[in-house]
């Protein structure tokens, strides 16, 4: 039983003992790891009878989780400054890092051999066995976002003052991409040529990574809370306040980038995500509406659902068939995407 093409169908809702802050799908879409605002690390089985159980905790609050793209390892981190590495076959917490600063960003490289964790201004890099390979300091600001460059061992970190690209294997190198202001999000387009950062003041900062050439997209009035690229790299969606914009990169050059205003939310946006392999976008806002957009023909949302509470996160499974929606009531809803 699947949802009709191009719509979302609510399949199940899992009640959690905690407020979901972050979540990551397993490679096969059969499980989700969830970070709880009060500290719980939860593992949800998304099969026929979806349910979640607590497998561990971060004192003070869990902040981030990540799962290998094609593996069974996942990681969690939190306000206790620790990074835990987990194996889905026998989930037991294995601390691989302890520090003082909140550890609030995590990410596996596409190839799964490297894990990065940001704590304050320092980027910690581990191998898949959990050994620390690097503790990269010297960033101009607290790391607000990190993004592994597609199919590489290069990672971009962004924060106040701009972005920095670390090449970690082959010939290690560092390159800076300065920006006046604070970057809050970071994301690569499909071919890894363009890095986009959403800024505190509403601008979208773009860099051609090879040439270092910066450009900016202006249109938002306030802080960019979320940004995501479509899988094919044609669209970049950004949200700030009540505004949702999809930027069309099909034309060449920054001048040719067209903003498509997706205006159907009546309150501040909470989250957005592109469905992998498509130009379908989901967005959620304080108006408690969950909207599905076909960006190419986006006068109206293609589907709409009312959420029980404010959305805290939107996560598509790798194959794009399932969508997890976290809410402030402490629930995780699973939607099928046709």
């Amino acid at each position, binding site marked *: 039983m699947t949802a009709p093409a191009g719509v979302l169908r609510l399949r199940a809702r899992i009640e959690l003992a*905690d*407020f979901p*802050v972050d979540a990551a799908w397993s490679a096969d879409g059969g499980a989700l790891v969830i970070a709880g*605002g*009060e500290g719980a690390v939860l593992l949800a089985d998304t099969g026929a009878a979806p349910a979640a159980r607590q497998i561990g905790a971060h*004192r*003070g*609050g869990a*902040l981030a989780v990540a799962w290998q793209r094609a593996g069974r390892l996942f990681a969690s981190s939190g*306000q*206790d*400054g620790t990074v835990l590495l987990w194996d889905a076959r026998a989930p037991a917490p294995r601390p691989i890092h302890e520090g*003082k*600063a*909140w550890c*609030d960003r995590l990410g596996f490289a596409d190839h799964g051999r490297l894990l990065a964790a940001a704590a*304050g*201004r320092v980027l910690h890099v581990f191998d898949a066995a959990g050994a620390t390979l690097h503790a990269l300091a010297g960033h101009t*600001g*607290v790391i*607000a976002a990190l993004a592994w460059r597609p199919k590489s061992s290069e990672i971009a970190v962004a924060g*106040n003052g701009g972005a920095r690209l670390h090449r970690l294997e082959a010939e290690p190198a560092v390159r800076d991409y300065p*920006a*006046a*202001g*604070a970057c809050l999000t970071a994301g690569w387009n499909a071919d890894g040529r363009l890095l986009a950062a959403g800024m*505190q*003041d509403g*601008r979208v900062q773009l860099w051609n990574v090879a040439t270092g050439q910066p450009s900016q997209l202006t249109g938002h009035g*306030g*802080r960019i*809370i979320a940004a995501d690229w479509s899988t094919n790299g044609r669209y970049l969606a950004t949200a700030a*306040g009540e505004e949702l914009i999809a930027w069309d990169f099909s034309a060449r050059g920054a001048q040719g980038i067209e903003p498509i205003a997706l205006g159907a939310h009546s309150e*501040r946006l909470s989250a957005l995500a592109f469905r992998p392999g498509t130009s379908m976008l989901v967005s959620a806002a*304080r108006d408690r509406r969950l909207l599905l957009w076909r960006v190419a023909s986006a006068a109206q949302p293609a589907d709409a659902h009312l959420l029980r509470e404010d959305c*805290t996160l939107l996560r598509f499974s790798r194959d794009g068939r399932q969508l997890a929606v976290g809410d402030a009531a*402490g629930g995780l809803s699973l939607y099928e995407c046709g």
Partner: protein
Amino acid sequence: MSARVPVTVLTGFLGSGKTTLVNRILSEQHGRRIAVIENEFGEVGVDHELVIGAEEELFETSNGCICCTVRGDLIRILAQLRKRRERFDAILIETTGLADPGPVAQTFFIDEELREHYLLDAIVTLVDARHIEQQLKSSPVALEQIGFADVLLLNKTDLVPATELSQLERRLHAINGTASIVRTHNADVALGRVLNIGAFDLDRALARDEDFLEPARPFEWAGLYTLPAGEYELQQRSSAEPAADAHAHDHGHAHDHEHESNDHGAAHPHGQLRMVDLLLLPSAAEAAPDEPGGGSDASRIDALIEDATRRFDGDAVLLGPHAALPPQVLGRLELDHARHVRLHLPRAGSWVLFCEHAPAEFGGLLPGLRPEHERSFGSHHHDAEIGSIGLTDSRPLDPGKVNDWLSYLLQSRGQDILRMKGVLNFAGEARRYVFHGVHMVFDGRLEREWPPLSARCSRLVFIGRGLERAEFEAGFESCIA
């Protein structure tokens, strides 16, 4: 949507007692759930537990505009605190001793998400009574921290003589005319004076707008006297000086003289006073006793304040030796050459003498005569780089013109204006317009109606660096409907 959580910003120099206060709030059984964000160490404290938080970080924008400067770490920490199911009753943010609290306050105006869940409640500045004079001399930040405050906790008062405390309070009031001053020692203050005060709550600001907008005056002191007609020596004759003046009235007493000398020697907050402006006004004999408070000594002074303020803005007449100052003339007394200068009372009755400085600062006025009532006003600034300007006017204002003026002011002087507050009387509008701002960030709206029998009077206060009264008066004048 649940009610917004009030946020108190605590500032003050190192050693002013912030840590003592924070520790009390964290450990006392007050039944409230309070999260304390201690930025000096990047820690967040919740119910005795300390959690290391985000590193302090200023987010500036590409245009370099300070009004857009916010605290990135606060946005991050407060977003995380919100993700606990158990809600906090209050948040206390301790700023570093050397930081301008502007960006912290602005963060709550600018960031939509924070604004939705948190409400800036008040800026509380701890002042070390013993060391503040020295800190004010050495650091502009100390001055700014006082300028930003809604509440000044004058701490360590046990280490400073009472006379100095009064002078210090006048000094603080000169810098910040709207902050309430609370004396403490060991930072021992009722939590109600620090948390959930509502200084930024437009609604609550109105409820106590009687004192929230006491404007700064060009005089620091007024005394009410009832005297027979005649001439009265203004200053005590120096003992070294022969009593050569035939008109001298023999009211001086050695005892008083000594007492005042001691006061004089206690402290000189304004450095060496050389001149002081004086104004004598007749107290209205016909002050209607049936008016609320009418006829009381206090109200007889109050009734003359606006008139005196206007006259103080005019040119003063220099009082040479043997001069006699008549009523309704602004006179300037040269303190080094003030002997034999008298006050001329053309008829018997009640008179109010307004004086630019508190008489205690320069050896007293009218030796031997005690005023029936006296009142101190916030001292206007002399050497302070930061001061307050207050405007009061009953003429109705044009909302469009006010908007133009405030926009112009914020663009041209926003960096210099630390705080502003006001209640405005708009023409044809039954409700009061209330506003407040931090630097160039501004929040205002129409609030409750004017009370039926009250005088609809606009009142504004600006606290800032190098503000010129004339500039603000001219701007205000341009807003009259």
